[in-house]
């Protein structure tokens, strides 16, 4: 049983070491980005989505139900995304 555990650890270590160096380099890059920039990128992503939704043609943001009722999806999407932006600006 001990041999099995030792072999498992050896295999896991080998695989981990393959990724570890590359992972450390990437972690270094990520840590070099200031938190304010990271937060900005995150918010810009949602702003781009908002822009995209505003620009979508009307037929792609309406849903016609069998009952004849039409649901306009754009306001809901904009409200959700705007809420996210506000939340991340506050936090």
């Amino acid at each position, binding site marked *: 049983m001990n041999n099995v555990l030792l072999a*498992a*650890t050896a*295999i*896991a*270590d080998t*695989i*981990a070491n393959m*990724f*570890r160096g590359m*992972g450390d380099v990437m*972690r270094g890059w990520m840590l070099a980005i200031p938190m304010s920039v990271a937060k900005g990128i995150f918010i810009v992503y949602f702003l781009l989505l908002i822009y995209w939704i505003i620009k979508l043609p009307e037929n792609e943001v309406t849903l016609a139900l069998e009952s004849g009722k039409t649901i306009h999806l754009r306001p809901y999407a904009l409200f959700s995304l705007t809420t996210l932006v506000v939340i991340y600006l506050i936090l």
Partner: protein
Amino acid sequence: MTFQIKQYHPDDHDSIYDICLKTGNSGKGAEHMHDDPMILGHIYAGPYINLEPESAFILHNEGHPCGYIIGAVDTQSFFNKVKSNWLMSSVDSALNSGATIWTKDVYQKFVKPDASPEHLLVVGRWITTAMLGIAIFFAQFATRFESIYDLSQTILSLFQGPSLAIIVLGMLWKRATGKTALISLISGVIFAGTLMWVNSNASVPLFQVSEPFLYVAWWSFVLSVVIVVVVSLMTPPEPESKLKGLVYRYE
């Protein structure tokens, strides 16, 4: 009005479930909150009236049931009974539904379409046994997690990355093919499982956070995207008729 308290009798079963539903919303009716009218009674009243009927009483108003009181004489023994009898019936239902899905939707559809009902019944029993065995096997790993939340997130993270990659590329890129999606899904799940295994078995964990499920999901997503792109470009494209209306802005 003439009130009378009577000992619970099995004939009162439906009345108790009905009262439970009519008072299940903080004393108000909960009929509008549940698709299944039996569910509240099944959860809150059923265990008591079935497992400890001697401590269940029903209030009658001029012969009509209008209220009930239920309880357990010994909480510990009642809890054990609930665990072994009542919850087991729920586990039993889950196993039955799981076995039915695998038997009808997988075995009969892909393995033996002309199977007789008797044959499917036997297969269903074997699948139930196998599912129970798998559940018992995985239970030992469940105890390693601090909470059920950690466990569910870890299991979900195995599938989240590859599934998202397939859905996003399938919706946005007309060149993505069906076979590639399957290859990507299987590879992504295996890769995510390998990362999890390596992280928990290596001398020094691969990730520097205690619950790395988001990292696992991310890297399996990246790998799945790469596989979908590379393999799709190496395989023949799907026919246009199959894609129109499904891929974004491809009419």
